[in-house]
């Protein structure tokens, strides 16, 4: 059955480049680059100092090398750290003023930026390369007191909030890529939900890497104040390219008393061609802090793209009775490598966490679940449930599970289980018998395998994700 693994392969659906002149910072990572970025973005001095402090620390750090997937060394001096589409220089007042080519790109991506999409109830803060181009639905959100804008705008307009929370979950003293991001981050989203407000719509941002050789360093900060609720969607596509591109984003979530944040991701970046050439390096740091009592943070992710994914969306359960959840599907095909999982750090009393991870590996890919569950001495009556299932297609791929489990408390309970197997022949046979061809059958079974995670996605994403799951595996079963 494994003979045909690399025979047919889905061409990257979103593989195109839009021809827009980019405005770039000089190549290389120096103090001057950071000053340039900061000046270009008209940032206050405290932020520049903060960036420089991160840069100073970065110089003393070494790039990590413990991970399973190895990659060619990245020359950080050969990257552009800032690039903005030219048309942003004189900011467009409405959609008509936006570069039509940009609009065209969005159309191909299906981003609901224009008026018709208003009906779909999605507010979009689209990041094209590194600068936010347009933000919709602002009015409606403003009425409720919700702030949803680019982080550069937030730095200008809401410096107090940014200053208070930026780096409070992922400090500049963190690991290599997080610190790199702190030093050179260009743009990203900022969300603030005021107390007792339920955000009326799903907030969504589409990231898109476009300019060649531009590492994208997004910074997202979401704050849910007391008693509020927000659901945030993140989706990614990227054009086809030969060079490997680096993406080192930082996402910080803060949930105060009784607040809930739901963060969903569909990631479909260019994974490289069938020989593993090209593709994006996705080295993302995502971390949420349940600071308040009864707060909840829920991560849902569907990872199908990128040549290498390292991503461990984590929850720090500080507040008593807080809840952390992690639902993940990671699909790897061809030469893709995904090393993903979560960390659940239980600090408060009666904290609960749940981890459901589904890994699917085909072609010559490697798929790793790496996670930590740590229940500290003070976290009495805490609970964790973890389930990691892996599916292997063919004998050239690998599936790995590396959980770290620590229980330092006699009143807390941890349950962990993991399984690895292949698609059940009998199930396949049954589907074939009912008239489904092999590919449809596999798609159906895999979607069923992932059901527990797909159910967690908001409507808008669920449909797209189901398609992605099928597309990603096309041609991997013979």
């Amino acid at each position, binding site marked *: 059955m494994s003979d045909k693994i690399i025979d047919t392969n889905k061409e990257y659906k979103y593989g195109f480049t839009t021809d827009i002149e980019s405005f770039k910072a000089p190549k290389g990572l120096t103090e001057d680059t950071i000053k340039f970025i900061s000046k270009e973005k008209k940032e206050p001095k405290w932020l520049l100092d903060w960036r420089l402090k991160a840069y100073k620390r970065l110089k003393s750090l070494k790039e990590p090398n413990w991970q399973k997937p190895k990659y060619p060394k990245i020359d950080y001096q050969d990257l552009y750290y800032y690039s903005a589409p030219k048309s942003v220089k004189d900011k467009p007042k409405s959609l008509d003023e936006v570069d039509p080519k940009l609009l065209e790109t969005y159309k191909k991506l299906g981003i609901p930026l224009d008026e018709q999409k208003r009906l779909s109830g999605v507010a979009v803060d689209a990041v094209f390369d590194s600068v936010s181009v347009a933000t919709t639905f602002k009015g409606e959100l403003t009425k409720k007191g919700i702030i949803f804008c680019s982080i550069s705008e937030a730095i200008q307009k809401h410096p107090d909030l940014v200053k208070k929370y930026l780096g409070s979950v992922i400090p500049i003293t963190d690991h290599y890529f997080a610190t790199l991001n702190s030093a050179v981050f260009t743009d990203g989203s900022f969300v603030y939900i005021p107390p007792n407000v339920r955000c009326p719509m799903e907030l969504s941002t589409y990231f898109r890497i476009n300019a060649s050789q531009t590492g994208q360093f997004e910074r997202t900060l979401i704050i849910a104040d007391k008693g509020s609720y927000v659901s945030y969607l993140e989706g990614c596509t990227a054009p086809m390219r030969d060079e490997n591109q680096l993406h080192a984003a930082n996402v910080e979530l803060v949930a105060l008393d009784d607040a809930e944040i739901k963060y969903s991701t569909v990631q479909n970046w260019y994974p490289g061609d069938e020989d593993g050439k090209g593709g994006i390096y996705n080295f993302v740091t995502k971390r949420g802090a349940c600071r308040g009592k009864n707060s909840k943070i829920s991560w849902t992710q569907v990872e199908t793209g990128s040549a290498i994914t390292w991503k461990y969306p984590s929850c720090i359960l500080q507040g008593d009775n807080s809840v952390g959840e992690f639902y993940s599907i990671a699909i790897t095909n061809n030469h893709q490598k995904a090393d993903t999982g979560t960390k659940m750090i239980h600090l408060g009393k009666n904290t609960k966490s749940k981890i459901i991870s589904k890994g699917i590996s085909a072609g010559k890919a490697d798929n790793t679940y790496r996670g930590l569950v740590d229940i500290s001495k003070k976290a009495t009556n805490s609970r964790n449930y973890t389930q990691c299932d892996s599916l292997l297609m063919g004998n050239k791929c690998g*599936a790995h599970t590396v*959980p770290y489990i620590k*229980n330092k408390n006699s009143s807390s309970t*941890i349950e962990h289980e993991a399984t690895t197997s292949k698609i059940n022949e009998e199930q396949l046979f049954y589907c074939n018998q009912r008239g489904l061809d092999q590919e449809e059958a596999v798609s159906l079974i895999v979607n069923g395998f992932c059901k527990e995670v797909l159910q967690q996605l908001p409507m808008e994403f669920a449909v797209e994700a189901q398609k992605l799951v099928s597309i990603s595996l096309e041609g991997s079963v013979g």
Partner: protein
Amino acid sequence: MKINISNDDFKDMGLSVSQKDFYNSFIEMGFPNRKKEDWKFTDLDKILNSNFEQLTPLKKKSKFKHEKIFNFDHYSITNLNGALIDFVFPKTVSLSQLKEVNHLKKHSIFFGMRENLIPGRPTVENASKKDQMLSLNLSFLDRGYSFKIMDPLDKPLVIYNYYDDDLRGKMINNSNSIEITDSKCTIIEVDIDKSKSKYFKNTFQKYKINESEVDYYFINQNNSDGFNYTKNEVEINDLNSKKGSIFSYFIFGSGSKFRKDDYEISLNGANSFAKINSAAILKKGEHHEVKTKMFHSQPHCKSHQKIKNILLEDSKGIFQGKVLVSDKAQKTDAYQISKGLILDDNAEFSTKPELEIYADDVKCSHGSTSGNIDHDAIYYLMTRGLPKKEAIKLIIKGFLNDVVLEITDLNIKKLIEDHLEENINNEN
């Protein structure tokens, strides 16, 4: 950690490097700390530093009047402080004793020696450069035994490991090798510590199981202040018949102050079956780690691992288990379960059950749980008239019984039941 050495500690081993060289490479690396992935939950450097001022390699080999503690009929090997002192064997077993360091090569018992002969494998010199415990072992290695069993044994073989004399601050480095071919046998290894002192033991053991059925039991007989690290390399081979071997390893390590048992098991013969079972009741300050690496390199092999820990007072139970399935090892069946019953707020249970799988037609799974006794279970037993203490005891017994049930030999089953019972009673 200071190691107290004198010039006559080091000898020529008949290898390209001397013991002094191994010592130098050990000094370069130092004792492993938690920055080393394999020692993540056991910071040996820190543990030794807080328990010893300095370590002195033990040189003395004493005589000792020993008694057989098991009343069933058995063969025996008796060691004192890691050195062989006596044996009662059938003729079919050949035994060599490691007397002098320069006998090492001749007896080829010493750890990693065989690898030297296999092209492509790292030499012992190279391997020791990465493994500080191996280089430490080789630096001071001066005791051990080696035997081959080529026929089925009619009686169990008991390996008595006595520790006596004043072993305060002493360090023992020994190496053993056991080869079993075309046999069916039961081996019981028992640690009996009469020294009442804190010492550090660093042991490397090699097992070769060729088309045999072996039940191996390790029992720590009494409370010991010893600090034990044991590395066991097990090769399960298939010479020609393809019938496969069955190797069952039982670990009953309760009672040691510090114990890390490290197993590297390679299933090199098709249709083989390896089992690891561990049950422990950990008390005050005990630190017990079981680390396994189950390497499936051939198809149709099975491995089952079952780890059960009861954690009392400020004890620490650790299980690091890895199942590695190579792309050739189709139809592998690998299972692993680790459970910790945490009965005290200062106790800790940490696990890292790991799967690394490169073959698709396999059935691999692991589970890990930790937590306290279900209150409903205690309540149920109390409604049936049991006092709370008895109810807890019964539940603990039931929890560990999972491992005891795997024992087929009735004599040994009784032995283990008594051993566990004693440990439970001591506590309540």
